């Protein structure tokens, strides 16, 4: 007689098999934090430093070792990008079952899409956006393309720190000189030999709705403008419930997400500069304005000055004509 395991029993077996064997490491499992396409992320206790960190390990079959190489390369890319807006990698190694892992700072915050419920102010949201641009621009300056920027990959920490997460799809953009070794690493994907839009598991690299058209098409030679597009979609996400969306801001979002990469902002700093100009009440490149528009913007930008000077002139004028009896 054949006996089958129940679904719940199967789920428990899967969970048990998914739990990494941390014997032989300095880490003790605390809890599972999440599951990505190729690996799971766990909260573990670092027994030597007595602190909790996040540990990422592959949790799907990896017969050809491609995912292992990708995970290790991801860790190396993140380790290279030392920036306050990028989660630092602490350690990397191999578990007793042969699976590679790396540990990183445990971020206890909210994802951007969850965080937005707590701040409806457009200026606050745009300041957060500028802080998302910083690490991305930093990564580009170091020859790394993120390729999977979306609200779910941005974390807002408990002290308001903004962190760009999940560099698992990142790509080395340019020839980058390896520090201290005098050798060059050629342009290539972080995912080992993957040069197409498909992984070994047949999933699209990136997230539909946030990917640049050229990334969806699988064009060779993606550049930083693909991340500019994704940032543009994040910007549109941030301003979506503003009513009405200021025309200049809408124009910035439109330019950042132009279908043709040539019509977009060519770099992240260009996009960030326009957003910062908007916040400061200055003109933006994406939205040419006429003399009336310029005058109105100047008045709004200097309204306190204008009110104070008007108050002074009014007071003086009143005093000239006012005579006490």
């Amino acid at each position: 007689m054949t006996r089958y395991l129940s679904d719940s029993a199967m789920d428990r077996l899967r969970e048990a098999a998914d739990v990494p064997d941390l014997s032989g490491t300095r880490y003790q499992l605390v809890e599972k934090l999440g599951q990505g396409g190729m690996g799971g992320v766990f909260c573990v206790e670092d027994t030597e430093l007595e602190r909790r960190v996040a540990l990422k390990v592959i949790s799907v079959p990896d017969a050809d070792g491609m995912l292992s190489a990708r995970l290790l390369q991801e860790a190396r890319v993140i380790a290279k990008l030392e920036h306050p807006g990028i989660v630092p990698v602490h350690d990397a190694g191999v578990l007793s079952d042969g699976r590679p892992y790396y540990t990183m700072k445990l971020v206890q915050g909210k994802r951007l899409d969850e965080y937005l419920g707590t701040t409806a102010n457009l200026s606050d949201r745009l300041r957060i956006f500028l802080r998302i641009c910083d690490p991305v621009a930093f990564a580009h300056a170091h020859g790394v393309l993120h390729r999977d920027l979306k609200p779910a990959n941005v974390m807002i920490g408990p002290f308001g720190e903004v962190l760009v997460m999940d560099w698992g799809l990142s790509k080395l953009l340019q020839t980058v000189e390896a520090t201290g070794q005098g050798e060059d690493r050629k342009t290539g994907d972080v995912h080992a030999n993957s040069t197409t839009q498909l992984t070994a598991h047949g999933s699209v690299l990136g997230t539909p709705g946030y990917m640049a058209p050229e990334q969806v098409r699988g064009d060779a030679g993606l550049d930083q403008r693909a991340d500019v597009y994704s940032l543009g979609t994040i910007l549109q996400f941030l301003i979506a419930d503003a009513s009405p969306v200021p025309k200049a801001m809408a124009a910035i979002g439109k330019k950042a997400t132009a279908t043709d990469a040539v019509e977009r902002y060519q770099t992240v700093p260009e996009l960030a500069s326009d957003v910062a100009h908007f916040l400061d009440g200055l003109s933006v490149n994406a939205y040419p304005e006429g003399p009336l528009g310029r005058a109105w913007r100047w008045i709004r930008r200097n309204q306190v000055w204008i009110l104070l000077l008007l108050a002074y002139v009014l007071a003086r004028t009143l005093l000239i004509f006012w005579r006490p009896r």
Partner: protein
Amino acid sequence: MNKALLGLLLGGILGVLDGLSAWFTPAVRNQLLGIVIGSTVKGLICGVLIGFFARKVNSLALGIVFGLGIGLLLAYAVAAMQPGPNHYYFEIMLPGGIVGTIIGYATQRFGEGPQAATR
């Protein structure tokens, strides 16, 4: 330009203009020079005090309140020193308070604060 210097300059310029506005009052036109000098000195003192406050306290609201207070206080002192039965408190304190507010706002928004200590 540091905040104290900005306050000093702004106080001086507004003080001169404030004093010159006495020209529109025929009754005191013959005392214009003295009024301009007094107003300028008042502006300079007001400006430097508010400028120093802005170096110590980084708050737009507090800067404006402090500027208004100093402007009113110095204007009150000037009015109280006026000879004769009429002290013109209202005529002197109203613009004085507004000038202090303007300097308070300007020194909080503009001008360099003190540099962080470096080794």
